[in-house]
């Protein structure tokens, strides 16, 4: 073999070796990088759900009793009850009517827990403020403690069943509509045409539910963050289920009812993991094609990945500082300030607000059960925010899943001597209500007297937090979170402690040791190699 051939051969050999070493890498990298799931049309696996196509079986306009001249809304209810003669009793047992649910407290006693004895993080407590708060009650005339919860005629049937869209409860009238044209906050309220409404009743539409649930807290999207008026007519970008270009589902498609008891729990007032509306009821617990994603559903709620942001249209209230309330302009009018988005940043009656849009949720473990701060509970540690409600569950609890939550933070009025949250008398035309007189002391005296609790005469403000699990405004699958949203050093679950998550967790010490081990090996090799090289020369 001459020299030329030899070099050629050597070159070929080197080339071959190079190929043998590198080719598998190129192949592997190309395969892996091209193996990401292709976007294909996916059929979503659905059980237990069929779009509602049933037309109303009766024409209410034909009923004689509904053609009489109605003077009051109660007359309409009485007319309804003549046929639906068991429904009144059913309603009496629902939380929509009672605004309460049975709850076994720490002593083992069953109590009624609801809006009467909890605090919320917005307008605080309903007692002494009823006419304003109960404008969303499905009844007429819950003005004070003396409301008769057994009077069936006070049930407001039409707030849920009106199909005309013309029926409105007045914001400060304890659940009643107006009897004459009245203005409120720049909006005109007209007396309803009861005949037209009564003859046009049907299954609740989005607007019916929304008339209360959109506006909790006194304005659109104030409380929930994921339920607001845009849902009445929305697109799949905002809510894949309700979007008219999506599945176009109504509220009741998921929140089915049994004897008027509607499925679903909201943990601002609910306490137990029962009769909940879940994604799994239609989607099953293993809805993905990917096995690892299906394994995630063991401990991660669907909502966590599929609701990447909430308040996608209107902003929601994230923070309410009552301590700054009371400011007036020089002319004596109440100070009102709006931020650059046109949302209210300050109101003299209420204090400072913070609003946010397209908010990333916070994440917590939740097993479906919750605890609440009940009116009169002592605050043990005043340095921490008072937990208005507490979502129970943690990593060690096998029934707990990670869920997305809107956390609403506030500063509420507090009795530092008795260490209890004060339920102030806010609403009313009397001489002590805060919104008329702007005197926290007077409002506290009245408010605490109504709830039968002591008031030391001293008040301060304390940080509070309230947790709102998110289930609406579900995004399309392509917009769901991806692995690295959580499986990364500073991902969305960065603050969720108590367990090891790949990609997020590591041991600083171990990584340092490992890195040093590699560096040391490398340095040792280089030094040894150089010494060998030079010692041979």
């Amino acid at each position, binding site marked *: 073999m001459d020299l030329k051939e030899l070099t050629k051969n050597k070159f070929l050999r080197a080339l071959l*070796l190079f190929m043998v070493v590198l080719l*598998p890498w190129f192949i*592997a990298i190309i395969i*892996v*990088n091209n*193996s*990401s799931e292709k976007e294909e049309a996916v059929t979503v696996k659905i059980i237990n759900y069929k779009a509602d196509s049933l037309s109303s079986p009766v024409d209410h306009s034909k009923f004689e009793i509904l053609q009489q001249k109605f003077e009051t809304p109660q007359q309409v209810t009485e007319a309804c009850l003549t046929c639906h003669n068991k429904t009144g009793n059913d309603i009496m047992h629902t939380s929509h009517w009672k605004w309460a649910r049975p709850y076994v407290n720490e002593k083992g006693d069953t109590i009624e827990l609801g809006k009467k004895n909890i605090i919320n993080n917005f307008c605080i407590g309903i007692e002494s403020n009823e006419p304003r708060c109960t404008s969303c009650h499905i009844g007429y005339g819950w003005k004070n403690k003396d409301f008769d919860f057994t009077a069936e005629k006070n049930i407001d049937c039409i707030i849920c069943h009106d199909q005309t869209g013309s029926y409105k409860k007045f914001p400060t009238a304890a659940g009643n509509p107006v009897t004459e044209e009245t203005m409120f906050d720049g909006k005109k309220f007209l007396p309803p045409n009861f005949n037209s409404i009564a003859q046009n009743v049907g299954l609740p539409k989005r607007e019916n539910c929304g008339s209360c649930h959109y506006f909790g807290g006194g304005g659109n999207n104030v409380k929930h963050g994921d339920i607001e008026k845009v849902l009445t007519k929305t697109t799949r970008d905002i809510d894949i289920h309700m979007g008219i270009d999506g599945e176009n589902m109504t509220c009741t498609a998921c929140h089915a009812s049994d004897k008027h008891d509607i499925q679903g729990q909201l943990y601002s007032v609910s306490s137990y993991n029962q009769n909940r509306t879940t994604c799994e009821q239609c989607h099953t617990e293993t809805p993905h094609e990917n096995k*690892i994603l299906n*394994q995630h559903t*063991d*401990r991660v709620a669907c909502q966590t990945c599929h609701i990447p942001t909430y308040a996608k249209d209107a902003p929601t209230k994230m923070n309410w500082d009552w301590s700054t309330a009371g400011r007036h302009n020089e002319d004596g009018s109440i100070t009102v300030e709006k931020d650059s988005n046109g949302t209210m940043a300050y109101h003299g009656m209420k204090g400072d607000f913070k609003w946010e849009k397209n908010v990333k949720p916070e994440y917590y473990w939740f097993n479906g059960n919750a605890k609440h701060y009940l009116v009169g509970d002592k605050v043990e540690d005043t340095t921490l925010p008072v937990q208005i409600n507490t979502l129970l569950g943690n*990593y*060690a609890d*096998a029934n707990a899943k990670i869920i997305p939550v809107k956390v609403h933070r506030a500063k509420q009025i507090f009795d530092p001597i008795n260490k209890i949250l004060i339920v102030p008398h806010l609403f009313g035309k009397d001489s002590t209500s805060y919104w008329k007189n702007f005197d926290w002391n007077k409002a506290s005296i009245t408010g605490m007297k109504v709830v039968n609790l002591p008031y030391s005469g001293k008040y301060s403000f304390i940080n509070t937090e309230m947790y709102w699990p998110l289930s609406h405004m579900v995004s399309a699958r392509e917009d769901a979170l*991806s*692995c*690295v949203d959580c*499986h*990364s*050093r500073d991902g969305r679950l960065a603050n969720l402690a*108590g*367990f*090891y998550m*790949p*990609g*997020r*967790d*590591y*041991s600083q010490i*171990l*990584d340092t*040791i*490992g*890195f040093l*081990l*590699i560096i*040391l*090996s*490398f340095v*040792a*090799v280089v030094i*040894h*190699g150089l*010494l*060998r090289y030079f*010692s*041979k020369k």
Partner: protein
Amino acid sequence: MKKSTYIYRRFERFWHWSQVLLIFFLVLTGFEIHSSYEFFGFENAVKWHNIAAWAFLVLIVFAIFWHFVTGEWKQYMPTTKYMMAQINYYIFGIFKGAPHPTHKTVYNKFNPLQRFTYLGLKLLVIPVQVITGFIYMFYMYPENPIHIGGLSVFALIHTLGAFSLIAFVILHVYLTTTGETPLTSIKAMLTGWEVVDVDEQEEHAEHLKNAVKYSIAGYYRLDENGNFLDVNEAWLKMYKCTDKEQIIGKHYSITRKEDDVKELDEVVKQVFEGKIIKAVPATRICKDGSLGKHILSANPTYAGGDITGMEGFIIDITDLDVNSEHLHYAVKNSQAGYYRVNCKGYYEDVNDAWLNLYGYEREEVLGNHYSLSRTKEDLHILDDMIAKIMKGKSISNMIATRKRKDGSVAKHIVSANPVYKNEEVVGMEGFILDISNIETKL
């Protein structure tokens, strides 16, 4: 003695290089899952880390099987013998050009440090990685059936294992450069061949064994009743037999004409009395009834001091027309000598009979050129013969003159056949039978 030897078998190399790829790939995807960098994307990294893990597991199962079946697991038995010497070598000796303190052989491929490290990998690091990996895979949300309280401990051990493997790879790759030349060891792991120390005793035994198997001298072995226990290919060929089964168990008398059986009976009788027959000419009757001539040697076989049978070699002399009759009787007292030379003509091995014929000690012969054993005038004949053999031909008999150590010459019949390695002729071997007695008689 150093010799190019096949030390890494095919599966071993496949296993090693697959392991290389898999470990690199697992590290690459694993540290992406550890959030050390982004490359494949987290989802892909997880998916392919799992696939590679399963592939690795399959490979491990095969490798375990292989190690036990081949007995190669013994290579990994740890020893402290020469451990300090090996450490000293890497710290001091290597810089002074000192020789390796331990010698690689087929039976001892690893130095004490390698044994210790590889065993550690096989028994500690890799099992720990597999077990923690499985927990990682199947106890993603660990509560059932055993509550292990989170992945933390297992994940951290898995990470530690990964770091140790990287450190191992760096050191391992570097230490491959400490062979004869920097690339020797890597080449060996690619081709399987490396120049290593060979055990002369082992080699000798191996040569003798192969000599019988592949030689063109026929080998036979009889039991105490004179029935055939074994014959080699060359024997079958000489008797024009195709199937060994036709011979095994049959009495030797079927190999002779009726008249000649007595002659053989006599030989057999003598051997069973403990005598060694160095060479006796014989006429055989082949399977097809044709006749052939050969010279045979015979010696008793022993088990526990008792004669259990006899064995010997035969060399065909059918075509040896020159004085064949004389030869028949003349080479009576000779004995089959065995030799083996490499392709350049240097002696690799010889047996005692050969040494006896030539009057040399073994050490004086091995590694020397065959010219040692020939007169100058005869040298070209042998050169021609070697050239033929190197082309793959065999020579079944040829009369040659040898030069003994004391300078005297003598005649013998020689057989020669090529020695193959990887389909290439790398040497030649054969038997010689002394016929010098004929010469004297004649």
